[in-house]
């Protein structure tokens, strides 16, 4: 049955037909003058600025569904650029929120902006609207990422994280097990390279861009290290755990040679292509790769791919970098009740299920993963539940936008020169100055 991939390929016709039927009925009911909901004029008007996504439906259509489902609130959808232009989305949001005039009432924020918006006082704390019991219905890592200085300033929407893709067929050929530690991965990858089954052992993203920090956080976290301490002010990037992790990243290119030096200029797509082209054994990347790998028009490795949580270093646990957009309510909104009502509906189990089946966005509520509809429509998302449980956020600080630039520069230099200790120590000084330690 043809699926819709997050890439926006032609839709699943059955799903579309159903949706059109429902939409048509609703429209028809309205036209026939069946008991009407309150007129639009009586409704509270709020605006919702959301980053753009392709899928079977658009976010605007989903917003319309909310408008149809009740009569108190009317939401106008404002479309921001897609997440691929995340700097532009960030800039547009910041310029609007900084004016503090209540527009937009509800917005979507990348998980790395949550502390920044909260620290600037632009996001409304939602603790009084979201009970402690409700909070346990979401992934804990996500609630942690949505919390700043003890206050919940974002409501979870969707989640994504890094994961390990591997070639089932190649591992079978040499009788290897799926690696759980990084050392195992090196061994298997090297063997496959030497035996000629794979041109590249392990592909990841080392381009001097945000994705480098994502990869860094995974290697770092899986060694028990981190960039900042829990208080957001202690800088741990030059500690032993970090040095080892970055040294390992450098070694994959220089020593064990399971990664080509090109990874230092590759982000998500250039690293994905050799893998789906059948040239690599292992790949670290986000969830979007799976649908492409299963698409015969895109990939040479259909049905040969497996996905597991990333490996870890001895004595620590697997770490997956947390990504995805979440909801926020404007602190200056003049329609607090309406905004909260809308955001609660968007974050409800039913809507999350809808987002999963129609837009391919993974739910942030573990319970939704067990829904039969989801299991049938998106078995891959269903299988990712374990991966997302271990998702860890990037450094939580309102100055993240400066911290990430400093990290990108320092780690890129470390990976280019091999002077890991020197570059990380320099990074520590820079970052300490930024977060005001």
């Amino acid at each position, binding site marked *: 049955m043809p699926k819709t991939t997050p*890439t926006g390929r032609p839709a699943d016709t059955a799903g579309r037909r159903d949706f059109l039927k429902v939409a048509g009925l609703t429209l028809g009911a309205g036209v026939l003058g069946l008991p009407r909901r309150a007129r639009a004029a009586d409704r509270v008007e709020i605006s919702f600025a959301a980053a753009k996504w392709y899928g079977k439906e658009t976010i605007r259509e989903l917003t319309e569904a909310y408008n149809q489902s009740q009569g108190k609130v009317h939401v106008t959808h404002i479309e921001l650029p897609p997440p691929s232009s995340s700097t532009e989305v960030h800039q547009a949001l910041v*310029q609007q929120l900084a*004016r503090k005039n209540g527009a937009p009432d509800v917005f979507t924020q990348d998980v790395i902006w949550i502390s920044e918006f909260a620290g600037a006082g632009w996001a409304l704390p939602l603790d009084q609207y979201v009970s402690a019991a409700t909070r346990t219905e979401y992934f804990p890592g996500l609630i942690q990422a949505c919390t700043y200085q003890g206050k919940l300033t974002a409501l979870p929407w969707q989640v994504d994280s890094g994961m390990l893709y591997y070639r089932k067929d190649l591992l079978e050929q040499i009788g290897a097990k799926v690696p759980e530690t990084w050392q195992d991965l090196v061994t298997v990858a090297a063997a496959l390279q030497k035996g000629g089954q794979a041109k590249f052992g392990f592909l990841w993203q080392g381009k001097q861009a945000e994705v480098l920090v994502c990869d860094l956080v995974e290697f770092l976290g899986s060694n028990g290290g981190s960039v900042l301490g829990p208080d957001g002010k202690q800088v741990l990037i030059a500690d032993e755990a970090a040095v080892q992790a970055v040294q390992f990243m450098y070694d994959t290119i220089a020593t064990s040679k399971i990664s080509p030096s090109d990874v230092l200029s590759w982000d998500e797509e250039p690293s994905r292509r050799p893998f789906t*082209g059948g040239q690599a054994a292992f790949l670290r990347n986000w969830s979007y790769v799976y649908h492409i790998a299963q698409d015969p028009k895109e990939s*040479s490795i259909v049905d040969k791919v497996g996905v597991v949580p990333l490996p870890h270093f001895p004595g620590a646990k697997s770490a997956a970098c947390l990504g995805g957009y979440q909801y926020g309510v404007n602190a200056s909104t003049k329609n607090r009740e309406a905004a909260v009502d809308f955001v609660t509906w968007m974050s409800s189990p039913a809507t999350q299920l809808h987002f999963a089946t129609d837009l391919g966005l993974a739910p942030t509520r573990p319970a939704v993963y067990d829904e039969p509809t989801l299991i049938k429509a998106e078995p891959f998302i269903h299988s990712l539940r374990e991966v997302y449980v271990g998702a860890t956020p990037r450094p939580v600080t309102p100055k993240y936008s400066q911290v990430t630039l400093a990290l990108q520069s320092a780690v890129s230099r470390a990976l280019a020169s091999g002077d890991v200790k020197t570059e990380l120590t320099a990074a520590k000084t820079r970052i300490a100055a930024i977060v005001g330690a």
Partner: protein
Amino acid sequence: MAQVGVRPGTLRRMALRGGAVLIMLWSVAPFIWQLSTSFQEDRALMSPTPSLIPHPLTFEHFFNIFAVKHFQSYVFNSTIAAGVSTLLCLAFGALAAFALSRLNVRGRFGVLALILSVSMFPQIAIVGPLYLIAADLNLLDTYTILIVIYLALGLPLVIWVLFGYFDTVPREVDEAARIDGAGPIRLLLQIMLPMSLPGLVTTGLLAFIAAWNEFMFALAFTSNIDHQTIPVGIANFTNLYYVPWGDIAAASVVVTVPLVLLVLVFQRHIIQGLTQGAVKE
């Protein structure tokens, strides 16, 4: 003593032909490759031996960009924004260049230098403050704001080139016109503009191309498909990470071909137009 070139005929002709072929390859090869990619499945990009002939041939990319991604809206928006701004650019620029060349403007080279310096400021720094002004005036997501911006971006070049053209028209022409009883407007419209047609065509085309391909301002100032231009549309083909390479190639083909045709039609004028006027013969 005198040594006229040995065997000038054949050697020279061969060198010319070779040079021409190289130039063609240089300019067109990547575009041909894009053309080929737009008809291939994305999977073929990864094959160890890239092939110029699509095999299998597919039209899905062209179908995708028009039926699924509504590329035609972006083309329409770009045509409006670039077309209107170019026409206005030529009109305003001609007026200004005429004033600087013919009407007594004190410190005219200072004015020209000011215009030049305005175009030297990094555009990135202008986006922020402009965005705030536009938001205040409710001009976000309109054709107006794009037209005004592209107008300002294109005027310096147009004014400079047309000034160069007008300045080389001999003053005797002015005198003759005045004797005939023509005012400055008629002088401009009926005499100087027709004489500067190549300059108009060239700067018009360059201004059009610049506006057609402009990315940064369009991205910052428009947020929905009703007003977004082609470069923004192409950038938005990428949802989250996945780059639909075939679709992008198809879009770039659709976008470049009309420009090339325009150039083919006007190319004689363009070459003349880039001359600063003076042919000392």
